[in-house]
């Protein structure tokens, strides 16, 4: 959770949503992998390693933000960012927030 808050410190993240995302992510990846992830993420947070230098951080932060309503709200940084559920295009097709579905061509 610290990584997400660190990376997106300039956004208004719904704290409960971040917790639910982390819980969902852990469930998806299984307990064993969770232990490894905890170790790595604590280390990265302590070292203040940002997304530029960490693939794991990049994956977590990307997945978090795309699982929220941030992009559906047209990247409005003044609004609170609410977690919607883990982004999974196989479960919810047509959710690419940058596609013509959401940015249709001008009439």
């Amino acid at each position, binding site marked *: 959770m610290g990584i997400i808050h660190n990376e997106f410190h300039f956004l208004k993240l719904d704290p409960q949503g971040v917790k639910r995302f982390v819980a969902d992510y852990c469930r998806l990846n299984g307990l064993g992998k969770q232990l490894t992830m905890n170790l790595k993420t604590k280390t990265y947070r302590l070292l203040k390693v940002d997304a530029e230098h960490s693939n794991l951080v990049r994956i977590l932060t990307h997945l978090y933000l795309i699982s929220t309503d941030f992009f559906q709200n047209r990247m409005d940084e003044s609004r609170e960012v609410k977690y919607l559920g883990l982004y999974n295009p196989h479960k919810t097709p047509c959710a690419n927030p940058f596609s013509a579905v959401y940015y249709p*061509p001008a009439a």
Partner: protein
Amino acid sequence: MKQTAYDVIAVGTGFATTFFLKEYLRTAPAKAKVLVLERGHFYPRAERAKDLSGEPTAFAKLNPHSNDAIQNNRPEKDWHFSIGFGGSSNCWYGCTPRFLPSDFRMKTLYGVGNDWPIQYDELDPYYEEVEDLMSISGPAETPYPRRKPYPQPPHLFTEVDKILHQKYGKLYINQPTARARVAMNGRNPCCASAVCGVCPANAKFTIENSNFGVYEDPRVELLFGAQVYGLELVQDRVRRVSFRQDNHDFHVPGEVVALGTNALFNANILLNSGDTNALTGRGLGEQLGLQAHVYLDNMQSLGGSTWVNANGYMLYDGDHRKEYAACLMESSNAPLFRPESGKWRNLVSFRMIFADLPNNENYVATTADIMKPQIHYKGPSDYTLRGVEAMKKRLPDVLSCLPVEKISYDPPFSSEAHILGTTRMSATAQDGVVDKYLRHHQYRNLFVLGSGSFTTYTPANPTLTLSALSLHAARNTFSSSHA
């Protein structure tokens, strides 16, 4: 098996075999006997999507994973394919550009590789037919000659694509693709979910949704779980096909045999069978791909109706191919973003795909397990690596019409999922394994289908071309003989 012998025995159920059989059946007699041997099982797209959604499905464990089917001497280099009914139509991403005419004449034009024994003009009508059968979406103008419009309208550009198209015209085009633009023939329109390997919207063409009726034809007997491992070769002909099913071995006679597994297993079967052509199994390769992320100043990349909206040919053709590899650009519409305030989508990402040249030091060999080929691959050629370096020097100028802040490059992908070579096409047996009709130079009732037959490796995706080659092979072999 219902018969003791067959007119045609086909191995595999992917693109190569399916288009070959579709043409064969078009003119075959009503009593023709066709046996199709598929190593894997049917795993429906809807069930694959369930698995990827995290839902349980009984189908998930039916087919072996591709990595378990080969012995890879260099595991960091992935060879990506799909085992099961429909072959790699279950994992492809639906990109269907044609080759350029120059791709078939590398030796004559650029002094590298070899010329194909078939040229663009001869393949053109078959390209057109495959495009109709797959309902390809594509633009009005292309860098390769075409005689009529694509069956489906083009996908929408992003705002960045529009700028590049305005500058480069037919060198920067809406990607020709089997990801439907409009609903047609049981497929839904693509909505850029960008997980095309298993399309959640059923927009991408697959053997499963093709409605070809090949495997439902009453003349066709399809066996699942039947892995072919060898051919009985007698006096320059294939007499029988050997396969294993449920731990029993079978040896079935066929008048004509068509191998349509992939470049790895086609070669393994031939080598197991005693094929002595010096080039069988040799020249294994594929393109090299890497992602280029272009950070834009005060410009967003938005819109676009599919996963890859555009192909860029600005670095593809020309005299530079004498020195270094051609490069095809794919404009990605995956949901990437910059984690920077106010600049979230000030980013466009291109997959840069490089040609390679066949290298006989990359090859497939047999192992003690007759079912499992061994892969020997040293890596891409210097020709390709020079192409990468040249691209990095030239790309800033190519993109000078955009407000570029910087360009960053990811390391190359471990696979482009296009397995090429091992049974290359040639005019003579000294230079290759099969002729332009995909018939083995020595065993004249044996067809070796698929991208293993490619003489050289262009940056363009292989599926449209290998499908057209299958149609071409079957039509030129069977239409006259049936008549």
